[in-house]
């Protein structure tokens, strides 16, 4: 049985939580991710920046009624990485 390596970017609690939320919706605001993950704004900010750096998510900054708004969206690369991560997990779980 061959072990598939777990993607270190996704094998982190908060980043995996963010990716799991984003894979379920079309796009989500920063506040939505913060509410669902119970993370602090600082930590969440750092983690979504890491996901953006590797191209797993897209971050759109805009203004809504004069308030800054950060919208996050999973990219096609992110979807592939997430699917591969789940497949790798399954290979461990079926042991």
């Amino acid at each position, binding site marked *: 049985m061959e072990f598939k390596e777990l993607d270190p970017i996704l094998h982190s609690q908060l980043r995996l939580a963010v990716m799991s939320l984003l894979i379920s919706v079309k796009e989500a605001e920063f506040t939505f991710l913060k509410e669902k993950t119970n993370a602090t704004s600082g930590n969440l900010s750092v983690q979504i920046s890491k996901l953006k750096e590797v191209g797993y998510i897209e971050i759109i900054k805009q203004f809504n009624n004069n308030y800054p708004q950060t919208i996050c969206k999973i990219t096609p690369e992110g979807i592939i990485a997430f699917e591969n991560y*789940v497949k790798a*997990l399954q290979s461990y779980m079926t042991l």
Partner: protein
Amino acid sequence: MEEKQLSEKESIELITSMINKAKNKVTESGALYLFWGWLILLCCIVQFTGLHFFNYTNSYYVWYSTWVLLIFQFFYIIKQKKSSSVKSYTGEINGFVWLVFFISMVLVIFISIHFKYYEIIYPLILVMYGMPTFLSGIILKFKPLIIGGASCWVFAILSSFVTSEYQSLFIAAAVIAAWIIPGYLLKKNYKKADNGI
């Protein structure tokens, strides 16, 4: 959420829990079902009363009020989109289902009037009502909408056997079953989810 080393089992549990959290967000408040349900019901009652009791043949003018609600709906949807913190795939698909319904409805009414087939307009409207209501019920996994959509088709068949004067009563019954009752149930669910009960 603190950072810690995840085991494979914890990873799977985390993924499942987050997907469920995103899935369980109740985004349908039922407001548009209620706005449209009550307006159409009112139009049907006014038209039937005007025709049946006062012999007023122009009572169908009341239907022009739907254009006012259409304009209101346009601004309402824009406001809703701006205030929503998440956009789901189901919400997007549902939006397109209702857009297709609106376009088809306008075309069906236009073609029926063009060929002067006035008596089939109401049964066809009922067939049209059933389609997006039923599909929304499937998309939102909400049984009252599925039942409401199916009841529109039953009313469509029944309305084919009565004169156009009485057909408006079948539309009234259909909007109660398809939009007003499910609308209040959706509103109840939305309030419940909003309060975190």
